[in-house]
């Protein structure tokens, strides 16, 4: 009797197991029976070489699969780019759908016309009036002409709609905008705007201005229009999307020749581009190892090590160490709240810079795969050539108040030596290559000099602990991102370790994005692991403009710029220079000199101690696609989340797998 009951229980358990197994086996994917969605699966598809299909029903050999940096998209039907909850631009939207007026060539550090045919030019005899031409034969993906009228409509719509947040930015700059003819746009500004193309074109990542089709938007309320079937001005259209927001499928336009990319570079390679969120980093790496993903967004060096070893077809920017691309346009370091009496003192900031063991910080942050920067501009190739390298002699001669020369140009060779000792292979050999990879140098790690400076400022050290001039223990907190912006997060801990060893009681306070940004903007911090130094073009004045003294507001208020509240004499000089630079066109020879002077003032004051450029681990797998940009094939940087992605697509070719 007992045995029979046991048998029944066991049978129930067995049946349950079988149900799971059967469901699983019954659903095992075949080319025709994949976990498909939408119409794509119902249409006949050209056969791929091995017949493998993606889970959205497209041939794998014709589909480029790209990781979505923003993860799952909450509202996959909201494509209105001017309302807060719209599908994030980096889910393929600005990469493939939206052309921009002007794009950026990050290799040359120059803008070039995208939908526009020319750069904006000042009209002679007319005050603050600029014109530019649009490319001919551009079409929206529904076949309607895309021309100057669409651009003028977009500007006027933004200026007229009080509800649209970006409208405030346009109204602040633009007085009026009109189409003089089908191809000519005229913009009248409130004041001279020699850098108009930088305000409404791409310099970094993308731009808030998206040209919208007048024939679709003219009868809609722009503040409530969902634009769920967006028209494309780029080389792809949206073909399908996951209602849950995990993926977006784009298809090459048949009329790709009527797009800026088609006209200037050629036919895009992939027939389909699938932007998909794979979830956690572990899953993304598993997917990349299995070649289920072609382009990965930000991963950690540790994940890259696993991927590199497990998938020989994976590829990062450099074939060998340091693998990561180091040309990101923002650099990382520690910023100070200069409104604080302690951190408002430039000598204190200098003491902390000299108490930073930068080599250990580099090793602790990203295993030494970082390029140092002593300047207020990121160490990209373009900016290294224009500022870092030309300023080395000045940096070597630069003296602190007491005549001490803090610059150390041996960082690159020293870190290479350390890495060699650790068994790292494939390191650069020549002095020039070493500097190109690891930077021109940084500040000496000299705790004696740091002690000397602090003693002079009234700080005292007892039993290994620093005391402030008022006699209290010197405790400091560094604000850091929690589980986002990994490099800045790790950097905060590594720097805190260095300063703790020096005797300052430092704690790292990690915060979620909303709190972190709020505290940064309201100066509710002592020190923070931020990245307020960005730049991509030799004329980076527009990126430095936020240091202008006019943006300083009291602590507690949201600062429109200058979140470090850095004021004083040096900042007045910087402001003066910035005001001059903002009135100069980017190709004016005075621009480089002016920015060099600004960099010198920042070195003297260190309101933000720049440390490293950003190292991006954004690898690709080459099983299905080839032609990706690398250090050897550097037609562009690996900016998969930027709007310029569309210009990479013609370079990508199927491998035949």
């Amino acid at each position, binding site marked *: 009797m007992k045995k029979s009951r*046991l048998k029944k*229980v066991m049978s*129930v*358990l067995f049946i*349950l197991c079988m149900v*799971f197994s059967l*469901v*699983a086996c019954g659903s095992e994917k075949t080319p025709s029976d994949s*976990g498909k*969605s*939408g119409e794509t699966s119902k249409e006949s598809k050209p056969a791929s070489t091995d017949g493998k299909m993606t*889970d959205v029903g497209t041939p794998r050999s014709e589909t480029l699969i790209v990781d979505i940096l923003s993860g*799952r998209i*909450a*509202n996959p039907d*909201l494509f209105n780019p001017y*309302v*807060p*909850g719209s599908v994030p631009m980096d889910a393929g939207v600005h990469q493939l759908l939206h052309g921009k007026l002007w794009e950026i060539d990050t290799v040359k550090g120059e803008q070039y016309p995208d939908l526009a045919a020319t750069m904006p030019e000042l009209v002679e005899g007319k005050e603050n009036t600029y014109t530019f031409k649009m490319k001919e034969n551009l079409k929206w993906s529904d076949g309607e002409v895309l021309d100057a009228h669409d651009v003028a409509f977009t500007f006027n719509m933004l200026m007229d709609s*009080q*509800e649209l*947040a970006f*409208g*405030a*930015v346009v*109204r*602040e700059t633009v007085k009026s905008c009109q189409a003089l003819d089908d191809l000519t746009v005229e913009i009248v500004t409130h004041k001279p705007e020699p850098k108009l193309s930088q305000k409404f074109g791409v310099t970094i990542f993308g731009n*808030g201005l998206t040209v919208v089709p007048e024939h679709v938007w003219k009868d809609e309320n722009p*503040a*409530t229009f969902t634009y769920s079937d967006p028209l494309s001005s780029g080389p792809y259209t949206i073909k399908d999307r996951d*209602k849950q927001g*995990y*993926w977006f499928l784009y298809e090459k336009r048949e009329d790709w020749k009527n797009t800026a990319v088609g006209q200037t570079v050629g036919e895009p390679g992939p027939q389909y581009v699938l932007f*998909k*969120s*794979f*979830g*956690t980093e*572990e899953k993304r790496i*598993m*997917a990349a190892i*299995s070649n*289920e993903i072609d382009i990965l967004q930000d991963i950690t060096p540790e994940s890259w090590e696993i991927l590199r070893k497990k998938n020989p077809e994976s590829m990062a920017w450099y074939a060998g160490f340091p693998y990561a691309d180091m040309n990101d346009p923002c650099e990382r370091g520690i910023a100070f709240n200069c409104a604080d009496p302690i951190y408002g003192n430039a000598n204190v900031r200098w003491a902390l810079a000299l108490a930073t063991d930068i080599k250990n910080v580099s090793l602790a942050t990203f295993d030494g795969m970082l390029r140092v920067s002593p300047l207020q501009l990121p160490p990209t190739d373009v900016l290294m050539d224009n500022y870092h390298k030309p300023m080395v002699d000045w940096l070597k001669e630069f003296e602190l108040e007491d005549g001490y020369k803090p610059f150390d140009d041996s960082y690159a060779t020293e870190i290479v030596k350390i890495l060699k000792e650790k068994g790292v292979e494939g390191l650069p050999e020549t002095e020039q290559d070493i500097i190109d990879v690891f930077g021109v140098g940084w500040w000496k790690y000299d705790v004696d000099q740091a002690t000397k400076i602090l003693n002079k400022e009234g700080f005292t050290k007892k039993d290994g602990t620093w005391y402030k001039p008022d006699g209290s223990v010197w405790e400091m907190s560094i604000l850091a991102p929690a589980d986002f912006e990994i490099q800045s997060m790790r950097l905060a801990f590594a720097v805190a370790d260095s300063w703790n060893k020096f005797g300052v009681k430092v704690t790292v306070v990690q915060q*979620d*994005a*909303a*709190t972190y*940004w*709020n505290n*940064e*903007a*309201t100066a509710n911090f002592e020190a923070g692991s931020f990245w307020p130094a*960005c730049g991509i073009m030799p004329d980076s004045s*527009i990126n430095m*403009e936020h240091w202008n003294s*006019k943006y300083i*507001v009291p602590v507690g208020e*949201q600062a*429109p*710029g200058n979140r470090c509240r850095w004021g004083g004499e040096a900042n007045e000089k910087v402001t003066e220079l910035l005001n001059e630079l903002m009135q100069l066109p980017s190709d004016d020879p005075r621009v480089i000199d002016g920015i060099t002077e600004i960099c010198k003032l920042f070195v003297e004051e260190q309101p933000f101690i720049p440390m490293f450029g950003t190292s991006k681990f954004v690898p690709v797998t080459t099983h299905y696609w080839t032609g990706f940009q690398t250090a050897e094939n550097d037609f562009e940087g690996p900016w998969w989340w930027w709007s310029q992605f569309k210009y990479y697509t013609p370079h990508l070719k199927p491998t035949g797998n």
Partner: protein
Amino acid sequence: MKFLKFLSSRLLTYIFVILLGMTIVFFVPRFMPSDPVESMLGQMMSKSSTMDAAAIEAMRKTLNENFGLEGTLGEQYFGYMKRVIFTQDFGPSLTMYPVPVKELIADSLPWTVCLLGISTVISWLIGNGIGLLAGIRKDKAYSKILEGIAICIYPIPYYIFALTLIMLFAYIFPVFPLSANFDVSGFTWENLKTVIWNSVLPALSLILTGTGWWVISMTTLSRNTNEEDFVAFARMKGLNERKVISRYVLPNTILPQITMLALQMGTIFNGSLITEILFNYPGLGSLIYRGILQADYNLIMGTITTSIFAVATATLVIDLLYPFIDPRVRYN
């Protein structure tokens, strides 16, 4: 009469709990160190280079107006209570503006309820079945093995467990998809199959980890009950073992488990964040998480209020049903 008195006191408590919960949910996010508008402005400014102070102020005003955050705290509070009570309208999501929070919850809720509801019930059934067996047959080898397995599974962190399942069944033996793909374009057999197939791993992980607790608690309960005098007396009376278990042991052990089940059914409205993240499962957990991270007041209020409502309702239902399940409990 007694029942009416009992019912009215329970209903009053129920309404009070919900109103109190809604009030707390309204005020707590507003005391967070982050503000949705300032956070949005901060992020916008970190991506663009600079904006004039006047432009920032104009954007701030626009966003505050759009989000319904203008007016005093009191005005906002009474407006919110009125909207929620009379129209069940939580307003638009601030981070997914202008989508109504109600719509976001309605989209996510069926997924969460299906996955967590079914897996909770299955793990409850399996766990209590095994637990009962292990409790009343404590000396048998299979009881010890089953209990041992449950004790081993229970303390494993869910994250590790779920990742192990993914590693095993989506990567090493790629039976299930690494990244789930839920087709919701219509109710067809094909779509249903896809949904079930994609839900197997998340459900399995929830069932296996959930079962552990039910086994352990049921084993203890049934073991104790099995040793009670009235059970011994029943055996001495000569009742067969099936009757002893079904009439004496099971009714006395299952009551606390039913209470726990009801409470768990209420908490499924919180979603299961880790499951959703790991398995790309669309549910309420990630909505709540997103709301908290981005200081989306309306989304936080909408999702948490739904959860409060669900837990309070589950408790009320159990309160009202208990006398039917356990005759010892009366309406007094």
